[in-house]
């Protein structure tokens, strides 16, 4: 028996030493990486764009983890996540070997995998995370490479311009404690501006005007339902799904398809945003009276059956929209076109048009987004050449995205990081209109390294997709022959029209778009409370008064503490 215990013990110890052994290996790597951060293997003669697009003399292996789309069918037979047109391009042009350590389906599965890799402390060289808290957790655990210097050296002029177009907000977003620890994602400003999407063909059928205010919307939605324009089960206003939210927040400040952001804006309410009160104090937008009033309005609409009865439980915001059951929804510029492709396929006359929603005193109020919400993080254990390779991969994508054969989804580009000039869509809207009217020619946009990287490609195809007359674009002006082109141009020319052509009366920015220290432990709980309260009030499952209790609980359970921290940020 003693012998047995001894054996058992030795097995335990073996297991222990296994873990101990591997973790000590890690820490020695840490030391190595941080003690000689910059051992360049190539001639230092290059600089600027030459350096930003330089080819490595010897192949450099870059290990990555990446999110993939399980339904994507665009990879040709025989290609794979680690061998496709994009990886071959990187190999040929820059001698970069991409090795995919792991993949997971976009969404929760991917988040889970990222959490596990962070928990294990063994990050792949690079991965793109879609939540800032992942970046900050990895950074605070000392897992990330400080790329401050290398980025300055290796950024291409295009990347530099795009970064500059955000007035330093992108850099701040990508940094932790003053050090740049990730490549930021920079998306167009209009991603954060939510507008009203409405079936203009239904309005025309009923000879109704385009609704401007919340009360107009109410009447219109009622008319749609009463006249059964979407069949027996017509939905007046589609809403968020079980995975999306009634409004975007300071942490997820853009692309909220199916949210009610414009309604809140029209009521001068900005829930989920940290508001500067102008007197040195800060308040959390959800707690305001205007938010409460808007919730009362939405609850009233839900009760009257104007809002999708299945709001908050559907798998996908787009389902009722694509099935052409719904006549109204809210979302950013690309929601019509990119966002509801099946709607056009099911009904080619579905004339979705985008408009602002105005307050009763005729103002367009909109909350504005942060620069971007994904982060390319690089492991502290990555060799300097690998870090350079990742920076070059980013430069290359920004420069060459428009030249790729996009029949293979660009999502397959390893460590794909979207970097677009903040006003790219507005620029394209204005210039494409000029091309259509013959004021400019596509060749005028053939400028290499342009800040507006997709402009030339779009200019070349715009006339194939859009037919005259150009003054009042409807779905009938568009050809759906190449559906991908149709979706992009529809989104730009219809979806971005309000933001490009109509000035916003009141732009609201959040005091911060990042988590404060206390939020790291307490925010999840507060957010959960907020989501529940808000949805339940809208669905009539909780009385409006529960809002007051929520405000009290929110403050007591760390909200006050966090508000103080945000106030400190404002003082800086």
């Amino acid at each position, binding site marked *: 028996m003693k012998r047995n215990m001894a054996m058992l013990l030795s097995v335990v110890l073996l297991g222990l030493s296994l873990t101990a052994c591997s973790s000590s290996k890690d820490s020695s790597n840490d030391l190595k990486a941080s003690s000689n951060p910059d051992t360049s293997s190539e001639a230092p003669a290059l600089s600027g764009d030459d350096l930003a697009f330089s080819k490595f003399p010897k192949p450099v292996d870059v290990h990555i983890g990446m999110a993939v789309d399980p339904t994507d069918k665009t990879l040709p037979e025989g290609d794979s996540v680690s061998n496709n047109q994009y990886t071959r391009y990187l190999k040929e042009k820059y001698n970069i070997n991409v090795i995919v350590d792991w993949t997971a389906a976009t969404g929760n599965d991917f988040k889970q995998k990222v959490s596990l890799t*962070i*928990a294990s402390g063994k990050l792949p060289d690079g991965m793109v995370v879609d939540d800032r808290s992942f970046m900050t957790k990895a950074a605070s655990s000392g897992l990330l490479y400080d790329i401050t210097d290398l980025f300055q050296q290796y950024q291409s002029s295009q990347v530099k311009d795009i970064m500059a177009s955000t007035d330093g907000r992108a850099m701040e977003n990508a940094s932790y404690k003053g050090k740049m620890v990730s490549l930021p994602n920079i998306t167009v400003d209009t991603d954060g501006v939510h507008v009203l999407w409405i079936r203009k063909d239904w309005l025309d059928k009923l000879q109704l005007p385009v609704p401007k205010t919340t009360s107009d919307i109410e009447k219109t939605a009622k008319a749609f339902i009463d006249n059964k324009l979407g069949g027996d089960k017509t939905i007046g206003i589609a809403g968020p799904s079980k995975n999306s939210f009634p409004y975007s927040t300071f942490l997820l400040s853009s692309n909220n398809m199916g949210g009610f952001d414009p309604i809140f804006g029209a009521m001068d309410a900005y829930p989920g945003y940290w508001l500067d009160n102008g007197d040195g104090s800060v308040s959390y937008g959800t707690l305001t009276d205007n938010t409460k009033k808007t919730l009362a309005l939405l609850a009233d609409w839900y009760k009257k059956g104007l809002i999708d009865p299945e709001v908050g439980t559907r798998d996908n915001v787009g389902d009722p929209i694509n099935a052409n059951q719904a006549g109204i929804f809210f979302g950013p510029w690309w929601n019509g076109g990119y966002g509801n492709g099946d709607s056009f396929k099911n009904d080619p006359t579905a004339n979705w048009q985008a408009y602002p929603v105005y307050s009763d005193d005729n103002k367009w109020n909109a909350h504005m987004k942060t620069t971007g919400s994904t982060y390319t993080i690089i492991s502290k254990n990555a060799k300097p050449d690998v870090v350079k390779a990742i920076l070059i991969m980013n430069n290359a994508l920004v420069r060459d995205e428009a030249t790729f054969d996009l029949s293979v989804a660009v999502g397959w580009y390893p460590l794909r990081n979207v970097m677009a000039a903040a006003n790219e869509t507005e620029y394209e809207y204005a210039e494409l209109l000029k091309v259509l009217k013959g004021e400019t020619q596509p060749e005028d946009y053939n400028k290499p390294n342009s800040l507006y990287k997709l402009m030339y490609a779009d200019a070349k195809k715009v006339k194939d997709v859009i037919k005259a007359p150009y003054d009042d674009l409807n779905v009938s002006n568009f050809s759906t022959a190449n559906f991908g082109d149709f979706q992009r141009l529809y989104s730009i020319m219809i979806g971005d029209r309000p933001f490009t052509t109509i000035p916003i009366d009141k732009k609201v920015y959040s005091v911060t778009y990042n988590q404060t220290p206390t939020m790291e432990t307490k925010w999840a709980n507060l957010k959960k409370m907020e989501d529940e309260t808000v949805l339940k009030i809208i669905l009539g499952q909780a009385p409006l008064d529960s809002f007051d209790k929520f405000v009290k609980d929110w403050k007591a359970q760390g909200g006050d503490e966090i508000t103080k921290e945000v106030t400190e940020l404002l003082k800086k």
Partner: protein
Amino acid sequence: MRKLGHQKHYYLMLLPGMVWLVMFSIVPMFGIVMAFQNYNPGAGLFKSEWVGWANFKYMFQLNDSKTVILNTFIIAVGKIVFNLLVPLIFAILLNELRSLRYKKLVQTVVYLPHFLSWVIMSTIVIGIFGYYGVVNTVIGMFGVDPKLFMADAGIFRQLLIGTDVWKEFGYNAIIYLAALTGVNPNLYEAAAIDGANRWQLIRRVTLPALTTTVVLLGVLSLGNVLNAGFDQVYNLYNPLVYSTGDILDTWVYRLGLQNLQFSLATAAGLFKSVISFVLIFISYRLAYRYADYTVF
């Protein structure tokens, strides 16, 4: 002694299983120390900062922990009770059937849902209880307004318990049916001659034959009062029903894998393990004392 000479072989037989337990169960158990640390992935288990009971204190400060423990308890106990009673009633009803072929058919088919995973069952449950699903269609015939079952925190627990019982009742009835095959038919005849009607037959003959089994199963499921069923909840819930549907296991999962609060998640997991261990121990004693049944 020859008998003791066998011991060597007994150890040898236990060896593969014990090696597995050490490698895959005991070694990872050292991770429990995380519950007493502020775990920092960069530093690892050995160098993370020790914080004593701070994670547990914080856990019980959170409103969530109370909600979650309560939900877990209610859902699990509901499942235990109804998973005892419904199969019991079903077994009795089945026992009363005259047609053997029909009996066989029912028996075979009702096992079926047990064999389908919650991944699959969730798609079906969501479909059936959807706004235009069959349940709303049926209650619509009686003039009831359609309801959003999956979003209604007020009935989500009942839904969880109900669908679980529905999935498992046929399977759980096996043990009762087995016990009923052991009943001497003469007992029924004797009682019938005494003029007992059907209800009295059930009460006097069928039920007593099942009492021991029911009591025993009840005691043995004591260890499950904190197992509310991760797979089911994970695949069915949504934020609207967190207040009633969120359970310890899903909470731990979200803390650890979505909010990156590794230490807090481990603390909550440990809490669950300790309580379950105590309960299993109690049920072991109870079963031994009152049913003279040695569980293990």
